[in-house]
């Protein structure tokens, strides 16, 4: 009787343990899946933006004289947001940050709901432009709630 009781307790405990494990790990895998996917998509998008020099045709006009006015910055951010949103996968929020070699943020464009995403991942690509300098492109893609 006692042995049976103890055996039952043991089985109960193990089952409880296994269930807890499975449930949490599955959730983690689900989250990790999302993160993993966003990471790849973001890296690929950053790489494509760098290699196709798309951003830098837009930046070149503005950066040629060395300084950016607030109005130019606003215009540039809008254009970049349009292009990057068009190129990004469907149903994601997008944020693009471009940093120059002095660590100044040149571009910071994002869709409105990016800060409310449950999961987000950032891909980076470095880009050197022969006229205007060295930049790091960081593209963040986020999955909204």
């Amino acid at each position, binding site marked *: 009787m006692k042995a049976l009781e103890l055996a039952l307790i043991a089985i109960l405990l193990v089952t409880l343990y296994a269930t807890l494990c499975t449930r949490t790990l599955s959730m983690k895998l689900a989250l990790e899946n999302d993160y993993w996917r966003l990471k790849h998509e973001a890296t690929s998008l950053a790489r494509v933006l*760098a*290699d196709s020099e798309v951003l830098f045709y837009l930046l070149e006009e503005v950066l040629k004289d060395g300084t950016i006015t607030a109005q130019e910055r606003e215009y540039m951010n809008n254009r970049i947001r349009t292009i990057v949103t068009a190129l990004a996968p469907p149903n994601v929020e997008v944020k693009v940050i471009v*940093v120059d070699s002095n660590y100044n943020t040149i571009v910071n464009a994002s869709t409105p709901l990016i800060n409310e995403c449950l999961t987000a991942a950032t891909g980076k*690509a470095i880009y*050197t*432009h*022969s006229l205007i300098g*060295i930049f790091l492109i960081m593209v963040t893609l986020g999955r909204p709630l």
Partner: protein
Amino acid sequence: MRRILSRRGQLSIITVTTLALLTVSMVAVIVLYQREIYRSEGAEAKSIAISEVLDSIRSDLKRLLALVMSNASRTYAFHPYYHNLTVFREDALPNVYLWTSLLSTKYDALVHIEFPEHNNITLFGGNYTIQENHMFKLYWYKPVAVSIGYVKATVSIPKAGIYNKTIDAYTGLSMNIEHFENVGNETKIRVRILVDEGYPLSDFRAINMTVLYPDFSYYWRKANIKDYKYLGMGRWEITITPQVQPMGITSSDPDGVIPLRVYIVDWRGIVASGLTYSGVRLVVRKNTPDVLYYYQGGYQTLDRSIGGTPDEIYTVELDWNFSLHFLLNEAPLNITSPNEKPPPIPPIPVKQFRVYISSDGVSWDLCPFQSEYWKKITWHGHEVWIPVSPANPAYWFNESCRLVFRVPFYTTSERHKYIEITWEADCDADLVNWPTSLIYNYSPPTYKDVISETFMVELIDTEHPQMRGYPWAYNGIAALGYRDANGSAFGPANIHLFGSEPLGGGIWALGVWRPYGTWRVFSKYAGPYSWASLPVRILVILNSTQVMNQATGEVRDDYYDTLAIAYVINGSKYMACLLHIYWESTESDYGAWMFSGMGGGRPEKFMYLRMRATVAGVGVVYNKTEIRDEIEEYSRMPHGSHWEYDDPNFFCTHWGSGIGRALLLSRSAVNALYTIGHQPRFAVTKSGRIGGAWVPQHSLEYEFNRLWHTTTFHTGDYYSYWFVFYQYSAGSGWNEWLKGYKYSPMFLEDYAPTISLEEVDTSW
């Protein structure tokens, strides 16, 4: 008993269960880790993710190299004087450091960049090398133009366990101008363009091509690219208008080469610049006779082939029209039709130029040359070429540049020499620092000397007013003080003298009004090349509107203006002085000399060449005049005596004590003597008196007129001429003067060398 046992049993089971659960969880974690890290697919997944990072870094490493190369190649191609690639490479390093630090802070990748040597880069069948630490090289200005760069990077990403992965990047742009021809009223060019390590360029929109052609006045114009067609493997056929006429002659085509400058700029800004020709070969012909004649009791010949002509070395200047300048002679290029005119020397940095010389057109030697800026000015209504300065070798060759080099003819059988003007393809090629025995010693007021192997010239002027060891101070009069190679003085030579000044007591100073000013000396290159000495000649220039009275010290600027250009030539025994004189007002006075050079009392004998038939003297046979010789000794002259001889011609000399010094005039000088002077004289002065003592002179002089006859110069009188001072070794014999006479035709206008085109070189 059973109760105790069952309690112990319970505890055992609990303990066992707990331990088992603990063990299982730890094992599970370990196994999970094992699978994550050590299973091959996990490791592969990680390495693939890393390969994406490395790939991304390599992709931008190429762009970083492109950044450096585009800055350097664009500046080298389009800026007139920033042509030091070493400086560009140094300026590029901060960009490289910025790049690596951006990667390390934002990418967590530690990147170390190296610039190793890379040779055997094969493009268009040729081998190119990038030397260690050079990063990139430009090989331009030939039918093949190559801009190529190579870097290597070592990448470590510690958090991913990746250490010292090596990646390398090649970036470049190359072009081969394969063929060009005129079709209809257009010109078609076939070029092959390769990108990076040799990928054919198939996207013409990725590059910007400019084609330039010269017109007959050597102005480069931009051609219009009408059409382009892709022929495959990077080959493009470009059609341009207008049709460009061929120029010159090539070994394969008597019509010559279509002269074109083609440069391409790719989407990254990298430039490659090519030319359809790679050099111009010319022939310089000497025109001096092999036999000279003189009259000494009968017609005598001087066979110049005996003993050779080791001092027959012409220092010629080639301008961008390929006209040959020698002294004041300008011999344009000898061509039979306008099309035979060769294509211009291209506007590329002078430091890349090379001049080769050959006797047979087969074996060539590199020849020292220097580049000078000359410009034509209107000097009192006359067009006159004056040197401005030595060129800046970093600067492009342009219409003000002259290439100056020596063309020797050591034997009479050598009638011509081949000269090839070409340039190095390697844009790192620097000026060749040729050894020179010419020294300029400048520490005024005591030293302002130009020193060559055979003689020294003290430049007497406002900075150096007195010749060392000479009793009379010149106080700013411009003159040339000659010394031999070991410093023994001959004394000053005055280049133009006029007028007289009574000193009282029946004593007159003669030839008192002499040019007053400062000699400007060019002995080194300008700008960043001031470390390089001029290897061919040192230029000395006087441009003065003033004259000074040597007796009273008075300075005036209303007598005559003097423009004198003198040069001392490396490795030769002569010094030339070109003179332009212009009279501001009409003046008449006693005593007018074209030249007066002291001898320091050392020469023993003297002679001079005579002109006309009816007077005794020595002449050149071409007019077969009846002339007798006149050779004299200074020793026969009493102290203070000044002997004049009539009928002077272009040559006189004095010799003795081991040295002979000849003064050779141009025909224009002789003409000026007779036109202005009417009774010109060759003269010598035995000695001058200072403080009661006779200072020996043993001079050589040319006077416009006899001493106590008035010479009048009128306003606007202008004459230009040259004299050459030639120093030779001579014993005391009576015929030693022939050693100087041997070289006299060299400096006459009618025997000046001439130049013609041999062919245009299109090899690379």
